[in-house]
């Protein structure tokens, strides 16, 4: 009787151990997926270096992947991504910070209960719908208003992307602002500062690393966003010299050309190489954001 019970216990202990191992293996799947992504991106992207040198690829100003003498210079695409991202950030960051401050410090509970879900709704709208709206509503408006050749351009794309980046930046910044200790604020009030002075000189500086995390994650999302720029940015693979020029960012270039690139050809490899560039950029941004948010958590304790 006793023996039987003992055996039951050892049996379930073995089961426990086995399940822990099993859970660990499943738990590794994210890392495995990440490794597979790198493996396949590099496996399919690096062969482009048989056709062009790395510097010609990154710094070449001509992207003619399907001509008889194909050119694979991604500089115009990188320039487009950078320009769109910068402009979108310039629009999105002040807006998001205003919303974050409003939600964390000023809004009445009632307004919060409307504004917060509204921000989450913005985050959930599919990007293709935003792109569609930019294409059929914003583009004709811009074209008429500024007398342009086309409303599908850098500015339109930046506007739509800024709208999409607001939820990310606003909600993470709001968390950072809300977690600033009350004692800091009380100290500031006690010294005679008013609410705005307290927010601007005490609360925001104290929340700064969290706000940076928010901004970096928001920018990283903007760089990687595809459908909006595919539908709205205009698609010209030229380095832009005005914010109303049509452009062709990295992501949209992949989406637009993958269907016509024969598997295993130079064009196919070139598009995967662009994927490597995107992967590295967003990877670095995420590492920075991770680092900052850990630092910030440490500060809180």
């Amino acid at each position: 009787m006793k023996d039987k019970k003992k055996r039951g216990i050892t049996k379930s202990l073995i089961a426990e151990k086995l399940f822990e191992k099993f859970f660990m293996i499943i738990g590794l799947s994210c890392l495995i997926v990440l490794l597979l992504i790198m493996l396949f991106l590099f496996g399919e992207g690096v062969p482009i270096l048989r056709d062009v040198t790395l510097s010609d690829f990154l710094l070449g100003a001509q992207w003619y992947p399907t001509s008889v003498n194909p050119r694979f210079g991604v500089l115009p695409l990188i320039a487009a991504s950078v320009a769109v991202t910068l402009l979108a950030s310039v629009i999105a960051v002040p807006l998001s910070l205003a919303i974050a401050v409003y939600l964390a410090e000023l809004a009445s509970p009632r307004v919060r209960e409307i504004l917060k879900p509204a921000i989450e709704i913005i985050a959930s709208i599919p990007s293709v719908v935003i792109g569609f709206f930019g294409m059929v509503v914003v583009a004709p408006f811009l074209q008429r208003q500024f007398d342009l050749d086309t409303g599908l351009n850098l500015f339109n794309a930046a506007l739509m992307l800024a709208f999409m980046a607001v939820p990310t930046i606003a909600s993470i910044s709001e968390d950072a602002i809300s977690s600033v200790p009350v004692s800091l604020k009380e100290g500031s009030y006690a010294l005679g500062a008013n609410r705005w002075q307290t927010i601007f000189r005490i609360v925001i500086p104290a929340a700064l690393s969290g706000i940076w995390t928010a901004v970096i994650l928001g920018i990283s999302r903007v760089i990687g966003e595809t459908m909006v720029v595919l539908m709205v940015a205009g698609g010209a693979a030229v380095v832009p010299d005005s914010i109303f020029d049509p452009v062709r960012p990295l992501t949209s270039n992949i989406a637009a050309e993958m269907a016509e690139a024969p598997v295993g050809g130079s064009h196919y490899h070139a598009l995967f190489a662009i994927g490597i560039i995107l992967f590295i950029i967003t990877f670095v941004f995420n590492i920075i954001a991770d680092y900052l948010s850990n630092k910030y958590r440490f500060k809180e304790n």
Partner: protein
Amino acid sequence: MLSQQAKSDAIEKAAFSLIRIMSYLILAFLIFIIGYIIAKGYSALSWEFISEMPKDEMTRGGIFPAILGTFYLMIGSALVSIPIGIITAVYLTEYAGMPLLVKIIRVGVSNLAGVPSVVFGLFGLSLFVVFLDFGTSILAGSLTLGVLNLPVIIRSTEEALMTVPRTYREASLSLGATRLQTIFRIVVPNALPGILTGVMLSLGRAAGETAPIMFTAASYYAPELPNSIFSEVMALPYHIYVMATAGTHILETRHLQYGTAIILILLVLALNSIGLFLRYRFRKQLKG
């Protein structure tokens, strides 16, 4: 002294007004986008629109195959992401045996969350479509969307598991339950609403994403409904994209594009609202 006081009061007032205006601006823009799409598209909506096949080169008829395809992709991706995601989250929160490994996995999860969706598309194309030879198919698209959604499920499950009080675990263990029993009979059931939130959000994402399925699952037009997991499918987001940008009937089918956008927005909003509502209830229940 007084004038300085008055000055800083004026600055405060101006700053607060500006903040308020900027916050309402976003709200107004959201209402404008949704309102505009509904106003332009609701005339296209009818029972036939969601239940019939497209006709006459998609210039008339319904979008039933796109709705069905989106459902297939949602279910397929859920079958991949839910079990793997929940088990990963259980491992991360309930087993702290190897803190370094847990830390590395967490970094991996947050990096996976940051990978652009079009890069997931490239990954799905090279691994599932070409290397494993699944072709452009429901299977390849579901797997791609499934791995894309892993971080969504893992994060919300982790958050939900962490809110279950430690005393529950201790009580269960002290009553002689094993760790496994504690996890599956006490911790997971108590965290269920929070886990469901993640499931709903991930379904919404699977329904709305376009770039990952462009090269892995979606077809421009399929005359027949898919008959196996190796069939290509039409899907709502891709349907909006192709109708709005390709073909010869872009302007004539504008109202159908708006109509499809409404259906997609409704689907995604419904899934997200259920998810957010569950989370709201869950948090309230924990508090009070």
